[in-house]
């Protein structure tokens, strides 16, 4: 059987590895059109990473968009009430944060939609960790529970705009501004201090859970911490324990997400390369009765991680004079390629082309050149 791996680029290798991982866990491939009705994104702009969408009018006059996101389409196009375990690799089109132009971004991910049992949530988290491990074993998966974050914010009894600012500060681990906002808005001192403690939690799950259990009492969030604790048990004895961190600064838009949320980091990549969570609230907004959890791996973040550069462009540069007999050339190439060599033919030596060796085809013979 032909070994294709040497012909694959770094991101192709990752895509195939992840697809194979998800398929082994019974997830089904999901293919979709590049286009979607614009209205879907217009109604759910906050769910998108950026609110810029490439829109166009199709032949029937309908306003369409090049897909900026996959999850919304999957939710829209799958039948409600049924259980779905799906994976995809799709290009999305959006303006990345901090950029000034649209980019085509390859995204690989999975969605688990349905009743959503504890086992489903554990499985998705397990697959997220395995996805990172398959790309680079030097990873950290940060996990949190939005129920805990919401309870902490509720306990402060602050106005909605202050609450929004506090949520942003939690994501930035911005303790000085949290302290200032809480003081200005008269939040109870005990709750403020507990919130500051909460966002300083960032350690392997075994250590962090004990800290969270104490804080859960202050915020009345015992259920959320219990669920987080139960979910993280999927990693017991896995060898991943040190790489799974509980970090309360992992946040997502609470209008769409609830429950477990997570972000994955790889050494050498400047930001999170994997992002996911439970999004029952999005399902509800889209009038679906099912629950759902999923994640995406952003391949654009991985470009700099793998080095596809080869020292040579081919094993051999074969110089063929203009009068070379085509049948002789074909037979020679068949033989060389059959021996496992990569061969570039040229009429004369191309100094830009990096070949391991150079040879000349003369009277049917391959004569090495200096």
């Amino acid at each position: 059987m032909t070994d294709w791996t040497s012909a694959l680029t770094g991101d192709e290798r990752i895509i195939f590895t992840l697809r194979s991982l998800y398929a082994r866990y019974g997830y089904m491939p999901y293919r979709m059109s590049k286009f979607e009705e614009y209205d879907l994104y217009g109604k759910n702009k906050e769910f998108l990473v950026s609110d810029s969408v490439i829109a166009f009018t199709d032949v029937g006059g309908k306003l369409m968009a090049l897909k900026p996101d996959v999850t919304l389409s999957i939710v829209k196009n799958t039948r409600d009430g049924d259980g779905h375990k799906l994976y995809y690799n799709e290009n999305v089109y959006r303006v990345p944060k901090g950029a000034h132009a649209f980019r085509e971004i390859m995204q690989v991910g999975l969605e688990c939609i349905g009743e959503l049992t504890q086992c489903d949530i554990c499985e998705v988290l397990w697959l997220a960790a395995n996805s990172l491990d398959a790309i680079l074993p030097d990873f950290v998966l940060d996990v949190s529970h939005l129920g805990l974050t919401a309870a902490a914010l509720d306990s402060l009894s602050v106005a909605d705009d202050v609450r929004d600012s506090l949520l942003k500060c939690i994501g930035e681990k911005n303790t000085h501004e949290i302290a200032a906002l809480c003081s200005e808005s008269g939040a109870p001192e005990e709750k403020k201090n507990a919130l500051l403690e909460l966002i300083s939690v960032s350690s392997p799950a075994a250590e962090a859970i004990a800290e969270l259990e104490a804080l859960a009492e202050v915020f009345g969030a015992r259920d959320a911490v219990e669920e987080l604790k139960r979910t993280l048990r999927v990693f017991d004895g896995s060898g991943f324990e040190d790489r799974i961190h509980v970090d309360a600064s992992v946040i997502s838009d609470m209008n769409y997400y609830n429950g477990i949320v997570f972000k994955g980091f790889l050494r050498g990549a400047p930001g999170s390369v994997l992002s996911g969570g439970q999004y029952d609230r999005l399902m509800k907004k889209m009038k679906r009765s099912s629950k759902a959890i999923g994640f995406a791996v952003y391949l654009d973040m991985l470009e700099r991680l793998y080095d596809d550069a080869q020292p040579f462009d081919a094993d051999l540069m074969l110089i063929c004079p203009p009068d070379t007999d085509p049948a002789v050339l074909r037979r020679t190439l068949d033989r060389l390629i059959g021996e496992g060599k990569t061969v570039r033919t040229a009429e004369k030596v191309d100094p830009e082309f990096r070949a391991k060796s150079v040879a000349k085809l003369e009277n049917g013979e391959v004569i090495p050149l200096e």
Partner: protein
Amino acid sequence: MNDFLNVALPKGRLGEKSYEIFARAGFPCDALLEPGRRLIFENEDAGVRYFWVKPSDVAIYVERGAADIGVAGKDILLEYEPDVYELRDLGIGKCRMAVAAPAGFRDDTRRTLRVATKFARIASRYYASIGREIDIVHLNGSIEIAPILGLTDVIVDIVETGTTLRENNLEVRDTVVPISARLIANKASMKFKTDAIEKIAREIVKGGSV
């Protein structure tokens, strides 16, 4: 390169003050303050490497992981909203983002207010919060002359002492937000160089800089 803690410092007085805080916190690199045009300095013993960069670029270096930590003004963080952790308020480089107008200016609310600024996002957010319709004129410098020449009605800009405003017959009308220098960290670096970054953040607090 990766074993070092890479620190982006803003060129100029704020960067020098920031470096003093880092040095006091146990991360000295005296060569940094020597005159010359070098931009990168290392102290192998302390495991730290400093870069001088343009103040408005610090957040970009940190967000994209070229620097693990850096010192950036709150104005830059509010304007560009980089995806970074904001770990400490260093309490230096204190100033404010303010609305300034020619002395005696009276806001005619029947008209769209024309605002000159380098900080379009901060200005838009501020006026949205008070429900005032504005027309932003984005300028890159000499903002103060915009109202004098009738280009705009007011400006939104950083005010330190107010001397430049006074010399141009402008006065502060409102404070948009107080500004100071912040210690920021790359989100991925925080996972993989946790000890070094937390040590700096802790030492900065101990050193009484905040």
